[in-house]
Every structure is written in structure tokens, then in C-alpha cells.
């Protein structure tokens, strides 16, 4: 059997690249200049995508949640405090072990389905401030996330879905953590960007927020921002997080009412 068959596979979408780039260029220009240009999917600048969240897709886990924001689909399962890996040294506070991985078909170009180290570390930092680690000493809580489809602003959705899964697993937390990201185009700020908008953003800002305690557990920012723009971008994110947190609380209420 000749080996030539295997190496030359390519996804046939190559030709559209040229046209797609002009369309993207034009999208970016519009978003940067005029304030009221509707986004590709018709949302205004300060509208999040419809959030569908649900607890308990995986019964094998002690707590799990599924989140779907437009095209971004994420499943998170939490395995309750269990003994940590042999190599870990003794620690009198609990430990959080986060792992984020993508499926091979998550991105339009076929990915490898490998773990995403950067997002795992960011997820760990976002949740660390909210989980009461001292309530499960010497043990580890495993938070595993799988991105079924990447449709833009994946990390914030993973963080919100993970905090819902932790609540579903009954892990003691100071407050639910919700997270939202914004992209900046010239002087306009758009919330909850899709992957097309993200590919052409001038800068982005992501906030992970605990609404009840009014504390930010994770804040990252790239691109060029002036002082004023940062303040109103963070305010925008914080009240979006508060609204998202109410949705999470309703989900938990129906889940518990369902359980009885």
C-alpha cells in the first residue's frame, strides 16, 4: 500500500480564504468607525449571545454543567474532593486541578484535540479565589472542561460553566464566578465576541467576577487601551457578569427543585 495516500489531506475550504479576508477586513473597518453598525449576527454592541446553561449532563461526575452561547458549546464535569495524585506533596489546604481540552472538530480547521495548557492555568486562577479550599484539606477537586465547539470567547464561558458545575457538585464556594470578555475595535467595545470578531479584534479584556462579593478574581487585557476605556469596559463586564449570575442561580434553583 503506498504511503502517499495519507500525508496530503487538506480541508477543501482553501480557496475561499481570499474572499473571506476582504470580508473580514471590511467588517473590522465598520466596527471600528461607526457606532451603530450591526454585528454579523444582528446583536448590538452591548448584547451577549442567548445563554443556554444546564446542570447534570454527566451522571458519572459528582457535579457537571453544559453551557451553550451561540456556537460555543462547553461541558464541564467536577469530580468531588478525592485523594490527589501520588506525586503531590502533603498540603493542609485543598487543591484545585483544572484541565481544559478541545475536541478535534471544535475549530473549523481540524485540530489535534490536545489539552490547552494556557486556558487550564487561567481557569485555575479564576476559580481559586472563589473556592473555599480549607474545607477539603489534603484532597483535590478535579475540574475538567471539554470544548465541543469553539465559537468565540471560549474561556469566559468555560469559567462560568465551571463555577456552575462546582455549585452542582456541592463544593463550598464564597460566591459563583461568572466571566465575560469584550473586544475593542478602534474606539468601540463589543461584548461577548464571536470567533470571527475575535480573529480581528484590536484588543480584548476579560473579567472573572464574583457578583455578590463584588470582587474580580481574574482580569486579563491585551492590545492598546486608554485609562477611561478600561474603566467603562470593566464596568460593562461587571454588570453583564451580574446578569449572567442571576441566570446561573435560576438554573441551580430549578435543578434542586427537579431533584426533590
Amino acid at each position, binding site marked *: *500500500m503506498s504511503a*502517499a*495516500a495519507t500525508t496530503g489531506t487538506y480541508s*477543501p475550504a482553501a480557496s475561499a480564504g481570499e474572499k*473571506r479576508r476582504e470580508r473580514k477586513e471590511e467588517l473590522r473597518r465598520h466596527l471600528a468607525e461607526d457606532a451603530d453598525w450591526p454585528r454579523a449576527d444582528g446583536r448590538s454592541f452591548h448584547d451577549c449571545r442567548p445563554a443556554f446553561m444546564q446542570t447534570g449532563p*454527566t*451522571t*458519572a461526575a459528582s457535579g457537571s454543567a453544559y453551557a451553550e452561547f451561540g456556537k460555543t458549546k462547553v*461541558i464541564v464535569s467536577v469530580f468531588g474532593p478525592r485523594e490527589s495524585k501520588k506525586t503531590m506533596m502533603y498540603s493542609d489546604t485543598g487543591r484545585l486541578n483544572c484541565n481544559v481540552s478541545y475536541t478535534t472538530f471544535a475549530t473549523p480547521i481540524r485540530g489535534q484535540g490536545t489539552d490547552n495548557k494556557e486556558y487550564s492555568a487561567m481557569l485555575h486562577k479564576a476559580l481559586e479565589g472563589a473556592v473555599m479550599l480549607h474545607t477539603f484539606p489534603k484532597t483535590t477537586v478535579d475540574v475538567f472542561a471539554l470544548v*465541543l465547539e469553539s465559537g468565540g470567547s471560549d474561556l469566559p464561558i468555560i469559567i462560568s460553566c465551571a463555577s456552575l458545575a462546582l455549585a452542582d457538585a456541592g463544593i463550598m464556594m464564597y460566591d459563583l464566578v461568572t466571566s465575560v470578555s469584550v473586544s475593542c475595535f478602534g474606539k468601540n467595545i463589543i461584548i461577548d465576541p464571536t470567533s470571527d470578531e475575535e480573529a480581528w479584534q484590536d484588543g480584548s479584556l476579560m473579567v472573572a467576577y464574583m457578583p455578590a462579593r463584588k470582587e474580580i478574581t481574574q482580569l486579563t487585557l491585551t492590545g492598546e487601551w486608554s485609562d477611561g476605556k478600561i474603566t467603562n469596559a470593566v464596568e460593562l463586564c461587571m454588570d453583564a457578569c451580574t446578569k449572567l449570575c442571576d441566570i446561573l442561580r435560576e438554573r441551580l434553583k430549578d435543578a434542586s427543585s427537579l431533584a426533590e
Partner: protein
Amino acid sequence: MAAEMEATETGGLAGEMEVEAYRRLFPLAFLERHLRESVRPDARRTDEARPITVALGAVSSAHGSALVRLGDTAMLASIKLEVMSPSYEAPDEGSVGLFAVDFPCICVAPFQVIWLIYSCVAWYSAAVEFHMPPICSPVVRPGRPAEVAPVISKTLEDILMSSGMLNLKELCLISGKASWLAYLDVYCLNADGSLFDAALISAVAAFTHLEIPLVSVGDDGRVFTVGGNEGKIKYEVVNREKRKITVTNIPFSLTCALHKDNILADPTAEEESIIETSMTVVLDSSDQIVSIQKFGGAVTSMATIKDCISLAKDRRKKLRGILSVEAMEVDSHSSDSVN
């Protein structure tokens, strides 16, 4: 074990102890008490299988996809089509899932080395990939794949090929020059027993839902997708009519756990962890046996094997409705153009 069995016999120990603790502490005794009244912990009869639901087009970025729920076990199968130059011997045949494994980290745990060698053998023949991500069950840890995943990948691939369900000739674009390569990835989202049955159904459903994109050949010989609704088409569309592939004699499998002369059809994860021996019977749509798999465990008589086969037969009759109906019903939002 026997001593503690007597204790529960007299109802002394089990009486006051809460059911959940008893279930955790003495799982085998718990199951056997149920089997004596021929009922199972989740209130099913021993030969009763769990309900199946199939949803097509779950992944919009894939050409064909299906989400299958077998009781609590959930499987997501997705097919991505890529263009390849067909092999010399079979110029007019496509293939399914040539899976190239490249391992990012060099120092691999011993188990992964075996998996690396195993996958090099499968590299050039068509291989299907069954993933068990860490979210699906507490047993799986990130970085170390579950032992059962490669086994299921291998059997799934053998059955898809041997059952003749797919006619690889339909995957050909231009004979000798370009043909389709279907990457089939099956992800287990929730592992609650009889993973192989759910994986096979999801693979079959994904193939029925598969829709080949409209393509034409550019002047540099490379194939590219045509937007479908674009007015002017520079190059003639190559495969206007070959959009759906015909799926004939659909294979169907039933796994039974064998425990001391009673047969539990479609075991849950808890039952699978207690009972070592299990047997999988695969039949095709004309009730011929495609394959029977029994990996070791306790010895069983021929009679039990016949019972399992008959169980599989009537289970398939009940399910023929689901498998064929969804073959026709094309899910609404799966038709948007996939780039």
C-alpha cells in the same frame, strides 16, 4: 464474601444500614439481592435495555454528526471530510479516518508507548478514533488515555469496515486524483456502561447524517468548496449529485453482562464494574451475525451465548424503527454551509 453474605441473609446488618451505604460497601451482595427477584438496581428487567435517543447535526462545524443517549451514556460522533489523493491500489475509493497520531510530548508513560506502536500499525489502514475525555468518568485522568478506549476504537473500526455498511466508492471525487477522507471521531460525554453499543449507534447515525459539500476543482488541481449559492461558478461542480452516501445493512450491537447464569442486557457502569464477564453480539439489518466479542472472564455455556444472540435479535427489531426513521429525517439546522 460468603460470611458477610450470611450476615445480610438474616437482615441483621442490612436492616438498619442506609441503602446507599450498603450499596457502596457490599456492591455484589446488593446486586445479587436484586437479581434474586430478577430485577435490577435501576428497576429494569434483566433482559430489558435502556431507551435510546438520537439527535442529528449536534456539531455545526462538522460535515456529519450525531448525539446519541443510551440511558445515561451519551456519545457524540462527528465526521469531517478532507480531500486526499487515493491510494495506488484503490484509485476510485475514499477511506475512513486515516488517523495520524503525533504525540506532542516525547517522554511518554509506558502505556502510551504501546498505544503509539499500536497506532502506527493502524496508521495506514483506515482507523476510527474513540476518545474518552476526562469529563466522562472518574476513572479517566487527563494525559493518560483510558485503557478501554483503544480497544473500542479497534472493534468499532473493524465492524464499520467488515459490515459493508459503507461503500467506499461513493467517497471518490475524481478517480485516481482526488477522493474523500472521512475523519470519524467519537467522543464519550458520559460513561455509564455499554459504551460500545452507544458508540456504534452514534457512528452509524453520523454517517446517515453526513452531507458531502459541493466542490469543484481549481486550475491548480486543488479541490475547493463552492459556496453553494454563489451565482457565478468558475469551475463546474464535480459532485452535484453525490451529496448523500447510502448506508446499507446497518450493524447493531448489544452488550450483555453474564453473572452466574443470568444475563443482564445493556449493563450500567456500576453493573459493569461488579461483573467481569460481558459479551457483545453485533448483528446487521438482515439478522446475520457480524461479530461476537467475549473477552475472557468466567466460562459460559453455548446455551447462554444463544440466549444473548436471541436477545440481540429482538432488541434490534424493537429498535429498527429508530435506526431507519432517523436515517430519513435530516435535521433542520445541519444544512447550513459548512466552511
